[in-house]
């Protein structure tokens, strides 16, 4: 498989700097070329591996493109109905408080049909991690308008562009949950460049560590692409995302624990 061209002396186990984690099952991902789901799966798996949590983790997979997520990470899984993942995770964490529990949901799952479950889990401060993939579109069902579709953005159910007079404006769920006292750490990241992948991975690692503190919900939005749904090449879609998605969904922390940044903490009662 390798294209060894006289570099056999470099390709030796002792020189290995990057290899896919064993927490990935090895199944070929079901995603389109260039899709950020795969990258997010991998960094999530890497964190679970590096933190030694494979035997302690229960994941809840959604309905959407990542419905088969349970095929790709070698951990225990529960597959939820569309939008209900935070309800499952609530019960899992309350019944097994020592385990690491997370949900992984897309924008249709989390910000449309599962809005109530998401907001109330965050409001109760369920001690879980929620990963929210926002690519502004329903990918699996063929590119329909999502609650996060940008104004004027075309989709199969907004073929002339999202008309905000008719359909309202994109829902910024991450901003909403950041205002709730129940959330402990809320951040918005992306995985389209090496630097962003590293930052996103760091955010996931923080959320994993915060869960041990038992202080509330950690919510990580990943602003991502959908080359097929947006009808672009993967590289074009990443550029389009930078130019159009990021101004509306700016990257960075929306809420950080007081210990890390006393000025930014908006939630003093949660941090005794």
């Amino acid at each position, binding site marked *: 498989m390798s294209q060894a061209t006289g570099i056999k002396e470099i390709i030796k186990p002792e020189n290995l700097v990057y290899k896919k984690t064993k927490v990935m099952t090895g199944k070929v991902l079901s995603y389109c070329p260039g899709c950020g789901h795969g990258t997010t799966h991998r960094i999530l798996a890497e964190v679970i591996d590096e933190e030694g949590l*494979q*035997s*302690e*983790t*229960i994941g*809840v*997979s959604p309905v959407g493109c990542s*419905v088969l997520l*349970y095929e790709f990470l*070698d*951990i*225990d*899984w*529960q*597959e*939820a*109905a569309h939008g*209900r993942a935070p*309800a*499952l*995770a*609530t*019960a*899992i964490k*309350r*019944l*097994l408080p020592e*385990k*690491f529990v997370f949900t992984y949901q897309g924008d249709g799952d989390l910000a449309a049909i599962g809005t*109530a*479950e998401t907001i*109330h889990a965050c409001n109760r401060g369920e001690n879980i991690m929620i990963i929210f993939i926002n690519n502004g579109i329903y990918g699996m069902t063929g590119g329909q308008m999502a609650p996060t579709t940008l104004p004027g953005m075309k989709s199969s159910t907004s073929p002339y562009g999202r008309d905000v007079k008719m359909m309202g404006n994109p829902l910024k769920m991450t901003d909403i949950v950041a205002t709730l006292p129940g959330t402990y750490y809320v951040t918005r990241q992306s995985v389209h460049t090496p630097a962003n992948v590293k930052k996103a991975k760091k955010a996931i690692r923080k959320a994993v560590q915060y869960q041990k503190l038992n202080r509330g919900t950690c919510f990580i939005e990943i602003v991502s692409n959908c080359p097929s749904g947006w009808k672009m090449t993967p590289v074009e879609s990443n550029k389009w995302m930078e130019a159009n998605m990021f101004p509306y969904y700016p990257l960075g922390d929306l809420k950080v624990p007081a210990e890390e940044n006393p000025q930014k903490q908006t939630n003093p009662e949660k941090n005794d």
Partner: protein
Amino acid sequence: MKGNEAVAEAAIRAGADGYFGYPITPQSEILEYLMEAKPHERTGMVVLQAESEVAAINMVYGGAACGKKVMTSSSSPGISLKQEGITYIAGAELPCLIVNVVRGGPGLGTIQPAQSDYFQATKGGGHGDYHLIVLAPSSVQEMADFVELSFELAFKYRNPVMMLSDGAIGQMMEKVWLKPQKERSKTVPEWATTGKPPTRERVIITSLDLDPHRQEKFNEKLVSKYNEIREKEVRFEELSCEDAEYIFVAYGTSARVCMKAIQLARAQGIKAGLLRPITLFPFPSKRLNELSGRARMMVSVEMSAGQMVEDVMLSVNGRIPVYHFGRMGGIVTTPEEVVDFLKSKI
């Protein structure tokens, strides 16, 4: 003690691990009692008021998939909301208890007792081919007793169990004998998600299979499970059936009405009896078929437009006349009405 309170106390004593509910009349006492009784201090049981019935049943899914004894309760409109979660639970083969304290419908209907959710409870309720095991208590004592029985059956067959009560029994106060406190189970079923140790394959709890051939195999497996349940778990009670020419078939509150109706009928020289199904799924079809060999008529007495009567007809298979009698909209039939109806058909 009220029937609803009996369910709640029995759940704590049965060693339930979790209850997830949402208020709705006429069953809110279950959640209220559990909140007041502090089961977390008594046994470590988790009790949570969810943001909706939809969330509550999905919390049940999450807890059941961890191998825990979990339950929810609601009344008709809330049970309709839970149907999505119930079909996923059935599809993922998870054990749990769902208590339905039925009220009149359709829609918001009334808050008075009814038995108009028989079809929904026994024929599946949500989408897809599945069955719940359905237990029908007719007393406060049975509401208490059926909690533990429900968990036993649920775990034995990895199948959701519904306790189909009604607003009368839920609200009724009767003396009840409660079992002593049982410890919460420490054993974890091997199919449960607990975190994947290196020694085993990962556990995936799902109701999804995109391969139609595998899905069909799974459906066949469910069918054989339901057939086994039909074979082994039929429960019913007979009253004065030995010499009965006319047999009432009734469950829950209607069965209590029929007990009195039998006395009234016999006082008038009419040999009436009662078959009270305790399990509505599996339905006591065999026994009804046997009885139809010597009885002259059966009357399905239900507080509905006639739902269980269809199963009675299927059981009797045309051998003798089968009628339905019942009031609707939250009105409980009186024994006199039942006897008058019987006399009108003799």
